[in-house]
């Protein structure tokens, strides 16, 4: 199975780049995944990633896109907390790409 290299340690991921063991996640790993996705992590990216992880801790699933956006709007203001800007931060979608960086499972289904 393919893996990310985090300071010399291999962290396994699936065919699509989602880590297979969720407890392997670390900030350094997030940085490595972001690099692989061609994303420069900024404070705004981290705000999204951190919220996703908090939400996952509580609910064992990623939040609905609008729940995420509402939370980011609250913490970072409406210029960041809107759908369009989320796609600028994560061009492949705040649900899938941000989840990947946050070490969450991929949302499945008709989404």
């Amino acid at each position: 199975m393919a893996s990310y290299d985090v300071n010399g340690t291999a962290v396994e991921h699936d065919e699509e780049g989602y880590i297979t063991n969720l407890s392997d996640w670390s900030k350094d790993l997030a940085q490595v995944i972001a690099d692989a996705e061609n994303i420069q992590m900024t404070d705004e990216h981290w705000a999204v990633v951190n919220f996703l992880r908090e939400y996952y801790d509580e609910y064992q699933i990623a939040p609905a896109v609008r729940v995420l956006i509402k939370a980011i709007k609250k913490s970072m203001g409406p210029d960041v907390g809107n759908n369009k800007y989320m796609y600028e931060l994560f061009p492949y979608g705040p649900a899938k790409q941000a989840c990947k960086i946050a070490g969450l499972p991929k949302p499945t289904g008709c989404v």
Partner: protein
Amino acid sequence: MAADGDDLPKMAHPLEIPKLKCGAMEGLAPFIAAPEHQEPLGYPGELVENWKEVALAKMKELAEKNRAFQVYLDACVKCGACTDKCHYFLGTGDPKNMPVARQDLLRSVYRRYFTFAGKYFPSLVGARDLTEEVLDEWYSYYHQCSECRRCSVFCPYGIDTAEITMAAREIMDAVGKGQKYSNEIIGKVKVVGNNLGLNEKALGATLEDLEEEIEEDTGVSVRLPLDEKGADILLVTPSADFFAEPHIDGLIGYAKVFHEAGVSWTISSYASEAANFGLFIGSYENMREIALRIRKAAEDLGVKRIIFGECGHAWRVAYSFLNTLAGPFDFLDPKYPVPQHILEFTWNEIQKGTLKFDKSQNDHIRLTYHDSCNVARASRMGDEPGGQFEIPRNVIKAVCNHYFDMDRETTHESTLCCGGGGGLLTDDLMELRKKGASPRMTALQQVTEDHGVTHMAAICAICKTQFSKVMPAYGYEMDSIVSVHQLVSNAIILTGQDGAEEDETEAAEEA
């Protein structure tokens, strides 16, 4: 081969026949299901050693059990009527995406082993041995069919081509070569109750959040009840309605309609999914297991009616198969159809005059409507033939001032697939999805040019997700795809809504 589908075809017309590109999509294959995705569905974890015997035995079983399948294999006379009817063929130019060629990948093997001529004179009748290359070819091209059945409409023998794809996938599952996307999802439904893996707690929190949002927007408290025993209506809707955009706006629309209609309703956390991917993989057993969850939820909650939300293939399974799979539903109120579509409900309420609308709330958009394949070709709504075409349009026209249909050869029973149906809505097939959408996107571009259409509405979770992903490649914003009940939600005036009286007075003055 561009992995990101950048080489999208430029079509002069939605149904323009492309130049042939032999082998253009050869080898494209979605991720194979891992053992943990296969086994919960009753399939071997990986390709079994004697896969050839197992595959042929399964084919024999299907042909014996399902008379129609055998007829479909025997009856084709290669007339060619279907050749240019598939959106994937139109979008890719790969001749193996001609429906007849796709069917022949399986038919040729059937001939070899199960017909007299094929056993003794294989080369005369296009019969061929089942080899590993053939199996790989099946895996590739039977995952380039969305089972939309547009080609079947044009087949003079009435061959239901989707049944061939479904059978091929069932055979591949039986030998341990299943598709990750569909099989992982079916596994989740069995454990959690929906495709997304959304548990009860998270679902409850999401619904509460939406209740708050509606109250903030309108000043009216509209409920989205979960697991409420004794409610009259069980709403079964795709779990994408709890998660994705624009689906969730459709869910808000259903809630507002129920609220204004004054009915009691509930969502079930046990059957929190309308989709039934058992259909996509041709598995009666898996389809039945998923359908039975709906029955159990309806019984446990003691509801009188079951209503389905906006989901294309779910409505096919519900309308055409639910009674066979999980019936009889004699415990429900016989006054209502079992099951009912949310659009039937909303249209009835509109006709009764229960709902008030301010259509100008949708004046910022100019609409067209995409008939979803499974609704269009495998179901009906209402009491009249063609209700599945008219009722969604009637509802849209009741809430929007600017509506325009696309080219008639691409709508109603001749509608084009969105390009992501039938278990293909997965990122590893993005190139196919983008190319397969090109006929529909070309039809949309035509109404944009002719009538300034800005948005397209749909009533299927797959269509909505697919279009929001592929529309940007065709020059549209991702939010140019909308839920029909999102339009209803925009326009509906809730009783006691903030500013509603002023708006009405203003409207009256303007009139």
